[in-house]
């Protein structure tokens, strides 16, 4: 089984952790190392020269790249510093850049996502739990033990709900090729279509689980994409927020039905039209998977 996914993950992952000396950054560096992630460097401005769990810390990404040949990044820095952190990663051509940080102003995200596109860098998130390659490595904060390797890719806008559904899959014998959170923010770098397009040609992926939620039209556009490109793999979808009232932000910055747009009903209907199987309960995802695999 090949353990890269061209366009999404490099062949030889050499991960750099931005904000590695912070509470979250340090904790999850340990978790990722334990899971087998090849973390080669960390960056915290002003903390260069120290070590966190054996990982050398640098002041700047440029130094880190020079000494460790890092090729990708995960960002844990606070929201108000996230734009500059991401830009530093972009200028150093790290890719992907997985932004865990929640609460980044949308104008900052828009600017950094457009800058990343200009420099051919993939941004995942912000406000994402990251991604996990079960039994290989993870770039993120997903709790490992609910995942196992397999042939189903899980793509999600959510965190704990993804763990929930992944666990129920594993409990019933469905492992995951990859589990990836696109992020719960209003503006995100990589969306459902981007991921499904990449997985289209991934031979190890046999089926895809999409965990959507209210807000925006990523799900609707994904349904169009699946339909119009004759997507070659079965897709099962769960959409959270069927009982959410319009105009209210349901936790995630992106989870809001506004101006008649983004309701769960609209998304579910579109998915159905596209031949996507709908699960109405998280636990039903497995049942739908059994129908297609």
């Amino acid at each position, binding site marked *: 089984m090949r353990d890269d996914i061209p366009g999404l993950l490099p062949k030889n992952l050499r991960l750099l952790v931005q904000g590695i000396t912070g509470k979250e950054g340090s904790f999850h560096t340990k978790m990722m190392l334990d899971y087998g992630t090849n973390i080669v460097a960390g960056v915290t401005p002003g903390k260069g020269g120290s070590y966190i769990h054996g990982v050398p810390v640098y002041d700047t990404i440029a130094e880190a790249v020079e000494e460790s040949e890092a090729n990708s990044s995960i960002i844990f820095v606070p929201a108000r510093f996230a734009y500059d952190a991401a830009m530093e990663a972009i200028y150093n051509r790290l890719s992907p850049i997985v932004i865990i940080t929640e609460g980044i102003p949308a104008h900052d995200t828009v600017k950094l996502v457009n800058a990343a596109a200009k420099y051919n860098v993939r941004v995942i998130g912000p406000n994402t739990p990251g991604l996990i390659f079960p039994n290989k490595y993870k770039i993120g904060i997903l709790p490992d033990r609910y995942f196992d390797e397999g042939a189903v890719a899980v793509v999600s806008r959510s965190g704990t709900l993804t763990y929930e559904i992944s666990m129920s899959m594993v409990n019933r014998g469905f492992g995951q090729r990859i589990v990836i959170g696109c992020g719960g923010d209003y503006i995100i770098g990589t969306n459902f279509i981007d991921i499904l397009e990449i997985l289209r040609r991934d031979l190890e992926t046999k089926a895809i689980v999409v965990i959507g*939620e209210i807000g925006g039209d990523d799900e609707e556009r994904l349904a169009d994409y699946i339909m119009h490109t004759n997507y070659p793999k079965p897709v099962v979808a769960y959409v959270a927020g069927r009982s959410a009232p319009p105009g209210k932000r349901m936790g995630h910055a992106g989870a809001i039905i506004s101006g008649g747009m983004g309701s769960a009903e609209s998304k579910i209907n579109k998915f159905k039209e596209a031949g996507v199987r709908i699960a109405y309960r998280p636990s039903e995802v497995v049942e739908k998977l059994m129908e297609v695999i």
Partner: protein
Amino acid sequence: MYLIEYEGKQLFVKYGIKIPDSMIISRDEYVDPPKPSLNYPLVVKGQYPYGGRGKSGAVKIANNYEEYIEAINSIAHISVGGVKPRYILIEEFVPHEKEYYLSIIMSRKDKKPVILVSKYGGIDVEELAGKPGSLMSLEIDPLIGYSDYHAKMVSKFLLNRLDKELMDMVRRLYRLFIENDVLLVEINPLSINESPIALDSKVMLDDNAYYRHDYTQYIEYSMLASKGEQIARKHGFSFVPLDGDIGVIGNGAGLVMATVDLVNYYGGSPACFLDVGGGASSERIQRAIEVIANELNIRSLLINIFAGITRCDEVARGIVQAKKLLEEMGIKVVVRLVGTNEDLGASILRDAGFKVYKEMDVAAMEAIKNEG
């Protein structure tokens, strides 16, 4: 966060966007409103944090002083979205034949600011979208920004000519959009009889950008906000009150939404969405329970925790700390715990007499049952 109309219009004025001559009247002046030094007819508009005031009768025309007093007296008592107006805006009526629509939105899909304009204003965006040829959307590359091109396109589309003042308004609106971390700024209706005037304002600011703006100046919004929103802000929870009788607490927006949906799915009626976020302490859990118990009239409480960073034992302790309150109020509690330290958490809860479940479907059904 949305600004109320007059706050949005103050922002317009700051950026040189024309609004009608106006005055604002606050709640304590409703009984004896100041005589307006404006020209009749006037438009009298209650200021609410929610839409729908037109249908509720909170916008009136006053042709003379008597009608002005009458309008204020009437609107003062009209609730929209559960709140009465703390302010009433008085504006000179601007005669206009046609209403247009102009907005700039931060587009999720395009990851760019997008200008939306329509030849038919005064109605909902959804309706607009239905009228073919009436709507134009125009991207602004965020790395390049505004240029006259955008304003020319807008003016040509709306008026079929280049109107200097309208073009200027587009430029100013974009500056307002960029400098204030705006997610949506909408002028609807827009009148362009002699010169372009914003007859209404809708401005949505990015909550995440609070640290680089003085959002306290928009205090009217918080004061007018619903109780649920005030609570959420105060405690830092994501909290949305719903109409039912089963409280729902969980960690993670997607999971809580799914739990609320599940209650509905099994025939129950959720009373709220409350996300405690990741890594919640026992105090935080306790406070979340207290908020729901005190603010809502609930029959049972469903707590659904899938612990990653969160620790189940912390959650369990928080629930136990709130036990007395819950018993006093006769609220049945159903807990679903999975993840980090789940065995320890479950035993803490069982020792305190709580029922603990592993499957969220089972927990949801249990919470709905009338008898515990």
